[in-house]
């Protein structure tokens, strides 16, 4: 399911954005080796402070599995401010009906758990459908997207090939990047839907997502509480040195066969060797 988080509802979805920034750190920092700033395991840049809109994909358990960021090209955006080199020194396109999309990524680690790329492809297409439909609904006709050749291949494979590129592919740090154009027409959206066999409304209501996240947080809290209770219970049955000594001497004394005696002796030896408790030598002497 897809949710759009922007300045108007981000107060309700801080936990979701936090998950998303962590996903971006794993993908762009760890996996792709982009030159991004990661603080505290989160990848956040200057454009995240400009109230962009995030289109975020969630799995059924409320985990962020994909995301992309959108900004208007009439105001500050990456191609006008930091990716200018991709445009060969030319001024960027600026239009009321053109949005820029950046930081497109999918959590392949989580989704490829079953050993196939099926879930990855599905989540990728769902995100593409969500972002194209969100833009279209907003009166946007085209998207210019800064991508690497990997995403470019993914787009082509999903029947969602860019109709053109602006500027040229340039090495940005360790990876090449390019600016691609996608139209937000119904034809394109239908092509991706047909390719992925996705025919439902991909968007989830804010309230639905909030309820899912709250339930998830509640379950997590429950598990933590249960673990704490278990740890406490374990503490309660912690035995004293005397009890261990008595247990061991009982074991030694009640041994009826040579094997039982040897086993009991091995336990005592181990307890002594591992210095489980300083009173263990007493046991040794008592045998």
């Amino acid at each position, binding site marked *: 399911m897809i949710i*759009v988080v*922007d*300045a*108007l509802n981000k107060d309700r979805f801080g936990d979701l954005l936090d998950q998303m920034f962590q996903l971006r750190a794993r993908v762009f920092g760890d996996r792709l080796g982009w030159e991004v700033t990661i603080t505290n395991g989160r990848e956040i840049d200057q454009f995240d402070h400009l*109230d*962009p*809109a995030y289109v975020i994909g969630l799995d059924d358990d409320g985990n962020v599995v994909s995301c992309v960021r*959108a*900004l*208007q090209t*009439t*105001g*500050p955006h990456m191609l*006008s401010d930091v990716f200018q080199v991709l*445009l060969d020194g*030319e*001024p*960027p*396109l*600026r*239009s*009321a*009906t*053109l*949005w820029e999309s950046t930081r497109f990524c999918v959590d392949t680690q989580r989704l490829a758990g079953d050993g196939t790329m099926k879930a990855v492809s599905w989540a990728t297409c769902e995100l593409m459908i969500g972002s194209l439909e*969100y833009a279209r*609904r*907003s*009166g*946007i*006709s*085209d998207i210019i997207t800064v991508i690497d050749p990997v995403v470019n291949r993914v787009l082509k494979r999903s029947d969602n090939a860019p*109709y*053109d590129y*602006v500027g040229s592919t340039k090495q940005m740090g360790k990876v090449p990047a390019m600016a691609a*154009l996608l*139209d937000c027409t119904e034809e394109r959206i239908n092509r991706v839907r047909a390719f992925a066999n996705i025919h439902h409304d991909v968007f989830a209501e804010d309230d639905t997502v909030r309820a899912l996240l709250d339930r998830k947080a509640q379950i997590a809290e429950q598990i933590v509480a249960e673990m704490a209770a278990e740890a406490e219970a374990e503490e309660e049955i912690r035995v004293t040195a005397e009890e261990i000594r008595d247990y061991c001497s009982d074991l030694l004394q009640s041994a009826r066969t040579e094997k039982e005696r040897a086993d009991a002796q091995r336990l005592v030896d181990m307890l002594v060797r591992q210095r489980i408790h300083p009173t263990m030598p007493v046991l040794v002497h008592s045998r």
Partner: protein
Amino acid sequence: MELIDLGSVAKREDSFITFLDQVCDRFELDHAAYAGSNPVAGTIHGYVNYPEPWKAHYVKSGFHRIDPTLHKASRSIAPVDWRRLERDSQFHQVFRDASDFGITDRGLTIPVRGPYGDTGMLSVTRNCSVAEWDKLVAHIIPELQSVAVHVHDTVMRSDVLSRALRYPALSTREREILQWVAAGKSQQDVGDILGISHRTVEVHLRSGREKLYALTTPQAVGRAIALGLIYPL
């Protein structure tokens, strides 16, 4: 009807109001309002075609300080349907009074961001059923987006410094396409000549138009020639 091109008329308050009236006529809307702030010039601008009594009441009540259609909507990148705004005390305070003046809460705000920290908003309303509203919005929203940026850019260029900053920065591709259009070629022809898709021509033409503060391609061509960006033929 055709909208007047704000880029070529005197920047007087009534030309903006006339423009808003035309926007309402053309897109079948009741009212339209533009508000924007220009940090370069340190100015705030506002133009509305609401009825006078509501304008007076709005200002007297200080609603511009709490109106969620201004303060919340401006931080979105997408048009904000007012249904999306939280029904909090501020919303009720403004819209309870609005309804007394016959102003509906069926509306939307298109936020605009400019390159120099300038922001603007075009808000439009229409008193009608939800179904009718949704149908209308889906139909007019692409054009309203362009109109919003057109008003904003024009308002933001009303002082000399901002005008200098906003000298149209056309790319080679945008100039090239405008040049062929000036030579009388259709978009299809231009695509064939330059070996690019029709869609690429369209997206560059639209960008070029907006950079030249023009609503139509002929206006853009005229302005590009006047600025010496392309050659007259």
